[in-house]
């Protein structure tokens, strides 16, 4: 509805108020005229107050005063001698006119005040309801975007504006618009800051050319803005708190890591320091066999250090999700063979039984990472299984996956530990017997899971076994086959 329409409609309704007022006075005057012989002039003047009071109460001051004048004229014309003239002879008649006017003014004032206070009460109630709705909708929300959406909707509901825009500042600033289109190019009719005691968190912009935004509306929207500010602040505090909690947890893990790591790093460092300093101090004669032994120790311990650092790097990569397998179609026996060839000195004290058939299909794995899985599983088995026992590696197809088992004849692991041995820094036995950062198995788990497989440990009849599965398909494609050329040159 545009403003011209609205104004003409009020004008028409006012016009009708006057017509009806005059009609009422005419009707009453006619009745009094018929009964004029039975009624005293003073009584008639008194009775005129009834329609006058009604008119003022119903339609306000304008019709009231006009009606008072018209009533006085009618009274004068019909009921005061000389009849049928507007001439006033007695001063008391003027008093009657004044009384009519005073009555009209007083009643209209009283009624007006009541109406105003009623309207105020109604609007206060509506505001309270809207605020209540807003604060209920915002309660418990921890997401800036959701809060802005609700706030914008509420502003739009109340104001019926052309467009509402919320410009939220902070670490991740954004703009929310309702409707979701570019707002009018002119500057907004109302801009309200969303601010807390400490901070400005954003701004509400409202476009509504007409009707002009009233003071009450502005006040209500400011209240909305402060509700929004509270909700946003609450959300940010909650986010900060949860961030702090995560940090605290990772801090705790880091301190475990640091203590474990510094212990593990110091052991090889001590060896290197002792060996290199004694070589440097010329305390060992040039031809002594101890010399070669010390040099070998430095070399070995440097390798050991390198392995520890590598494990830490792998772990941090797994933790941060940066471990992405570079898959290729690989031959499992080749990977196993290459690992065992590299570990041949470490496995000398154990018997190896390998059952990884050549007939297995290609597996879509990262060669380097799978080497590491086998290295870690075999070296873990070597640590716990007594010398001269059998370490067995077996692989077979189960449906669309390949199942690999690395088993040893070492001691059983209590069932409650079976899950947890893949956790970081977890050790079943006392640390003095077994060295390592406690990361090897959790790295295996990270790698296998990054490949879409599963890893678990179990007690078997004659010992202990690690199992893992790997999918044989790669992005839905089965292992490739290709014809070999067999003719020789």
């Amino acid at each position, binding site marked *: 509805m545009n403003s011209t329409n609205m104004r003409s409609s009020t004008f028409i309704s006012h016009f009708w108020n006057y017509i009806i007022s005059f009609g009422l006075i005419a009707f009453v005057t006619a009745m009094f005229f018929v009964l004029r012989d039975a009624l005293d002039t003073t009584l008639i003047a008194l009775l005129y107050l009834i329609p006058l009071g009604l008119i003022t109460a119903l339609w306000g001051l304008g019709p009231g005063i006009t009606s008072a004048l018209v009533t006085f004229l009618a009274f004068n014309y019909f009921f005061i001698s000389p009849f049928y003239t507007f001439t006033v002879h007695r001063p008391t008649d003027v008093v009657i006119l004044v009384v009519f006017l005073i009555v009209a003014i007083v009643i209209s004032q009283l009624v007006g005040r009541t109406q105003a206070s009623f309207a105020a009460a109604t609007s206060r109630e509506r505001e309270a309801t809207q605020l209540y709705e807003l604060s209920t909708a915002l309660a418990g929300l921890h997401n800036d975007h959701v809060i802005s959406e609700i706030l914008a909707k509420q502003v739009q509901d109340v104001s019926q504006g052309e467009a509402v825009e919320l410009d939220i500042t902070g670490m991740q600033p954004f703009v929310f618009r309702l409707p979701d289109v570019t707002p009018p190019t002119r500057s907004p009719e109302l801009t309200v800051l969303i601010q807390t005691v400490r901070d400005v968190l954003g701004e509400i912009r409202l476009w509504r050319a007409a009707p002009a935004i009233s003071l009450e509306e502005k006040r209500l929207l400011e209240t909305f803005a402060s509700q929004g500010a509270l909700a946003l602040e609450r959300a940010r505090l909650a986010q900060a708190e949860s961030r702090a909690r995560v940090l605290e947890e990772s801090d705790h893990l880091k301190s475990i890591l640091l203590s474990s790591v510094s212990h593990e790093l110091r052991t090889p460092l001590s060896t290197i320091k002792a060996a290199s300093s004694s070589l440097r101090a010329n305390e060992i004669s040039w031809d002594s066999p101890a010399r070669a032994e010390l040099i070998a120790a430095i070399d070995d311990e440097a390798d050991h250090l*390198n392995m520890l650092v590598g494990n830490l790097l792998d772990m941090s990569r797994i933790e941060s999700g940066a471990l992405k397998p570079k898959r290729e179609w*690989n031959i499992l026996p*080749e990977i196993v063979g*290459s690992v065992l060839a590299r570990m041949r000195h470490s496995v000398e004290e154990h018997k190896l039984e390998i059952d990884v058939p050549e007939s297995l299909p290609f597996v879509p794995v990262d*060669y380097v990472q799978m080497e590491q899985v086998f290295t870690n599983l075999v070296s873990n088995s070597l640590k716990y299984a007594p010398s001269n026992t059998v370490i067995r590696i077996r692989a077979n197809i189960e449906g669309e996956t390949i199942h690999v088992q690395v088993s040893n004849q070492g001691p059983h692991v209590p069932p409650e530990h079976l899950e947890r041995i893949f956790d970081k820094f977890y050790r079943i036995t006392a640390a003095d017997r077994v060295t390592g950062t406690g990361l090897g198995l959790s790295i295996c788990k990270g790698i296998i899971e990054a490949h879409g497989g599963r890893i678990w440990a179990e007690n078997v009849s004659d010992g202990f076994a690690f199992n893992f599965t790997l999918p044989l398909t790669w992005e839905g494609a089965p292992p*490739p086959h290709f014809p070999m050329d067999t*003719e020789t*040159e």
Partner: protein
Amino acid sequence: MSNAPHILVIDDEPQIQRAIRTILTEKGFRVTTASRGEEGLTLAATNEPDIIILDLGLPDMDGVEVCTRLREWTQCPIIILSVRDSERDKVAALDKGADDYLTKPFGIEELLARVRVALRHSTSRQGTQSKVINAGSLMIDLAWHIVKRGDEEIKLTGTEYKLLAYLAANHGRVLTHQNILTQVWGPADADHTEYLRVYMRQLRKKLEADPERPQYILTEPGIGYRFISDE
């Protein structure tokens, strides 16, 4: 002394510079060092070294970029240094023209072996390529297409021979999967690592005494293969 091979080391870590310089100088090489990529490129242009040892983790430039820019004008052998777990970078640098790589921390025998191979290949580029490669009991005659173990001739298929010949001609050097696939099978098959896996396995079964512990054709995990000869 001025005839001693000249080696340019581009590495930003002073300890590594010191270690490499000490060892190589002791072995009779002339050594120049640079700690930044730009400096390295300038020294490579002014000093014309015989070998460049290039660290991939430089502060001012990507090592692969240094490699690419060097290859725009020089065929000087480049040995890259990098840390473990950066196979992608290593492969990228090798495919951009680097000749070999060393993973930090490395043993000195490895460094010297790489330097020797690089020197040999830089002279063979100038024309004196040997036609017969000996590795243990293996003999590969590249001119006559003959492969023998001891006195016994080994029968190879066409692809197997092409593969072995390419490896043997580059003995001592690492060859990336993509490089080998492109040379032996052609550019269209450069991504089919599985071809390589199967043929390498067959080849090892025919050549190696213990195919699981190869002596001649070594796997460089995540990178490629290397043929080890007697030289």
